[in-house]
């Protein structure tokens, strides 16, 4: 069987394209970095891929709201093609700047196949600044998200200035009731952060770190799973290594690497 083809966007200030492509490759995918303009001018067609990745970065400098201009450009030139891609069974992930782009495009939350309405937003962190730190994430086991199958907890880095998940109360309720909230910021034991800083690093409502559409095939999250592609990326790996050497604990940290998310997406097509 041919390998699952993954299109990883690049260009215009995106900057996590290399490691995202690498993480998909580790997961068994056939990942290709494609410049946004190659999609727009038609030299590359998304129809020949199964997975589309909107990656982290500062597209167009993010000067007018993170992901805003990327969404405008993608929507203007590829709006219909993106929706067709999803409707035909394609899988989409948006990480950090990519998540911001997906919500600005309206591809998320995607209630009832409405992929055009902007209903949620990622706004400036409550702490007032860009922040790089690791967070614990609790996975919603009832979510239809194809990326998080069989996962329970994750530890991943966040690196953003605009990651506070915001929506009107009605939208939040609907997201929760539909089980579209995929990831929540949590304390180290997996219990909800309940807005506590820095476990919830940005003040996200309901501790929301990632959501998916109703099909579970469109997924957006603020943390960076592609940056946990090697055991040595974990902030405490040297500690776990030392405990492991003394047979007091396994050699590695307790939760799976971020690459597990990509593996699930690739496996979605192969099994």
């Amino acid at each position, binding site marked *: 069987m041919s390998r699952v083809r993954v299109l990883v966007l690049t260009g215009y200030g995106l900057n996590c394209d290399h*490691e995202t492509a690498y993480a998909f490759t580790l997961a068994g995918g056939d990942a290709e970095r494609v410049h946004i303009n190659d999609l727009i001018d038609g030299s590359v067609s998304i129809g020949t891929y199964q997975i589309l990745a909107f990656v982290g970065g500062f597209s167009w400098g993010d000067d007018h709201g993170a992901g805003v201009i990327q969404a405008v450009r993608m929507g203007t030139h590829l709006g219909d093609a993106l929706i067709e891609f999803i409707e035909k069974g394609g899988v989409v992930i948006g990480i950090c700047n990519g998540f911001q782009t997906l919500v600005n495009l309206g591809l998320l939350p995607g209630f009832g196949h409405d992929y055009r309405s902007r209903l949620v937003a990622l706004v400036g962190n409550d702490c007032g600044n860009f922040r790089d730190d690791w967070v614990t994430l609790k996975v919603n086991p009832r979510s239809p998200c194809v990326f998080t199958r069989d996962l329970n907890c994750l530890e991943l880095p966040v690196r953003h200035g605009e990651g506070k998940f915001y929506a009107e109360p009605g939208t939040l309720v609907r997201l929760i009731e539909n089980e579209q909230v995929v990831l929540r910021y949590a304390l180290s034991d997996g219990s909800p952060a309940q807005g506590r800083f820095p476990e919830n690093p940005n003040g996200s409502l309901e501790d929301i770190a990632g959501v998916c559409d109703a099909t579970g095939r469109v997924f957006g999250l603020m943390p960076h799973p592609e940056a946990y592609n090697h055991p040595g990326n974990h902030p405490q790996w*040297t500690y776990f290594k030392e405990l492991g050497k003394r047979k007091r604990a396994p050699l590695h940290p307790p939760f799976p690497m971020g690459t597990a998310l990509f593996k699930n997406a690739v496996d979605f097509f192969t099994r």
Partner: protein
Amino acid sequence: MPHRLEIALRSDLRDPEGETIGKKARDYFGIRLDSVRVVHVLTLDADLSKKQLDRIKDEIFTNPVTQVASYRPLPIPFDWVIWVGYRPGVRDNPGSTAVEAIEDVLGQVFKAEQSVYTSKRYCLSGPRLTRPEAERIAAELLANDIIQQWKLFSRETWDEEIGIGWILPKVVLDHEPTVTIIPIDSDAALEAISRKRNLALNPKDIPIIRAYFLSAQVRAERAAKGLSDPTDVEIEYISQARSDHCNHNTFRGLFRYTDLSTGKKEVVDNLFKTCIEAPTLSLMQKKPWVKSVLWDNAGVGRFNDKFHYVITGETHNSPSNMEAYGGALTGIVGIYRDPMGTGKGSKLIMGSYGYCVGHRDYNGDLRPRLHPRRLLDGVIEGVRDGGNKSGIPTPFGQVFFHPGYMGKCLVFVTALGLMPREVHGTPGEKKTITPGDLVIMCGGRVGKDGIHGVTASSESFSEHTPAGHVQIGDPYTQKKMHDFLLEARDAGLIRFITDNGGGGLSSSVGESARFSGGCKIELEKVPLKYAGLDQWEIWVSESQERMTVAVRPEDLERFLALSRKHAVESTVIGRYTDTGKLHITYEDKTCAYVDLDLLTSGFPQWTFDAEWIPPRHRGLVEPVLKEPGNLSALLFDLVARPNICSKEWIARQYDHEVQGTSILKPLVGRERDVPGDAAVIRPDLESREGLAFAQALLPTYSQIDAHAMTACVIDEAVRRVLAVGGTLDHMGGVDNFCWPDIRYHPLENPDGKFKAAQLVRSCKALKEMCLAFEIPLLSGKDSMYVDGHLAGRYGETHKVSALETLQFSATSVIDDVDKCVTMDAKVPGDLVYAVGVTRDELGASEYYAHLGYIGLNVPRVTPRDLIPVYRALEQTISEGLAASVHGIYRGGLGVHLALCAMAGCLGMEIDLRKVPVDGAARNDTILFSESAGRFILTVDPGNRAAFEAHFGGLPHACIGRILPETAFKVLGLDGRIRLEADVLDLKAAWKRPFGGLI
């Protein structure tokens, strides 16, 4: 007619940007505000229909979930409104991306005279807020008048229809580009021109320049091109190339060194050649991993079978001192172009920072342009945006506070890149140019930016005068260019590449033309930001985000197609030749025609008198100090000192894991909050190899002797890299000197000769250490004149000179990142070892500084004794025998034991009687001496024998053990507990000083 769009968050949402301003107003000035709301303003200077305006508002700039927007002033309550916008010609990055978005949505291109300007309106609420308070917030927090203009409105002066009014910071030069002929009738005439035009020509260079232009052969050749006396383009070119910045005249100077205590004299001819170039060349013979040094924009070392790494570092002090944010941003984005322009081009993989500033809480009489607190805020933010928006991790950095940096701050920026060993079958680090190759300028456009700062600052500002001398970097444009150039490189399209930094085209084209032996440039082809620049301005402008590339004519079409795909502007501006001439025309008329080798021949060397007075003869002595009875209180106070305490707030603002390469992060330990010894990245995601990197700064040691300062700085950088798993077999270095003026003047610089002697001593120490530790200097830079004149209380001014400062960076390649170690204590019951000898070396230590002393006994470095210890440490780490390793740096053993305990959130019991000492006979000396060459290790008791076997005959001792609870206990020389604290309390004290900052 212009249109003004105001955008704000909905009133029921928190405004974190506004809250941060409110917090700073309270913390910095004691001004209490009820609320601050920020309105983002876009002024569209373009003819647009109502329908188009609505699309712009609704489809691009307003988030329907969170924002409100209007082309009329938004009705947001306030007591005062402060409007802040850019001055004309200042880089407005959001304005440019707004134009891109509007063009995309409307499907039409803006005309040259159309533009978008961004600004902000701050709505301040506070019923008792006075006008002077609002003015203070505007001038000292929100706006910097060098690049920005501001206006204040009270409720009474605010017009709900007109709002902020109409301010279009458009550059209108209304000037016909003109080449001016420079008279060279006499030395005095040229000197007068030099002064008038701020060329800073060295008086000794003037006769050489005149002789060239007066020679009969030169005049005959020039006459054939329609030229006689030199043009301003030519004189500006020569002045740029001969500047200390470009030519390193100080380091290449002749130093007459005298030791005033012995009368012994010595002549040091050319510090660069003797102390930097010679040792590096000799080490290259022994170190085949050194691939390219001393000629390109950055040095190149081997990383693995597939890649080389690239490193360089520099400072951006003067611009940051004027405009902290823009200066630092331009600095980091600028240094990132150096690896891009090394060999055939490198991918950026890491950046780092070093800030030396006055104390954040300074409240004395001196009035620097920017208060150190504001300056540091701005510098941090500049490097944050420059690094984060470039997608380059910033996993290492340091800050040093000292009043000497009030005159001028230091902003060190360092960049590392990765290049393939082979590009299209040729070595990645090599490049060349063949006559006929095209000269291409890529990236940003040219404006009046950075044209010798001083000239611009002496012009009076008018409404449309570009504020040229301070720039704002544009990481977005540069990131696009970076991605484009790497793709062009891999397609084999780049023959030669270099960056446009200081000196602009004058320097990049002037220097690259030497590879082919000449060039012919058509200046009118250079794309400009606005019309009206003189030819010389186009030639020397330092407008940012530009690279100069040599491309074969047959590759041009592919190169330009790739450039278009990446939305990067590339323009052919001329051709490389082999005529031996730098030939510049403007609309077919020659405006420069000079021999390229003019700059390399005949100019006189600078000379300096250097007089060394040893510290004892300067009256420095050890303080008469009896041992403190309360060592616990002392430790609590030491860990809370600004140069020791936690600066987590800075590290967290920097993305240190983009690219997915992070192995050892800036903050380590159980709670991820204690700085590690060095950063490690795994830049080739498909390999196990890691690159370790660290830097050190110890400027206070220069108060005693810059030789000791230099040796200790290098030793610290080396130990940092060794502590995480690096090796002396591969230890690369980068030297960054920042020195006060060393030119003696009886009134202006009476101690210039001493500072010159300090420089000579520092360079000698650099040479000694590099040879002893076998560290080739992969790159380095010097920044002289770190002095400032500050106004005082009575209208007098004070010259404030920085401490003689060297930042040293060290790199090492680790064959398997799995071997890396961190400094946090890990397992209760582990043995704590001290490695290395503690001496009575408290001179210029943090402990003495805390008590108000300098002292005399500055730490000395004896590599011969240290190298066997370092080798044993390498073995220990490589065999996995150490659970943690940490160097002992500023603050000494006591402070660094505490840091290991804090990082592990575990206690420690230490017996000072066991610490290997030589002459250190008191508890305080052992705890706080800053002797070089020492480490703290924790070791599994099961590994004790194997560990000790490596250190047989070397200074080491088991001095204690890790406790399961968080007690930190130190037994003194009398065997009694002399220091007792809870590790968590210590940690709280260490975090407190800057703990409220985010």
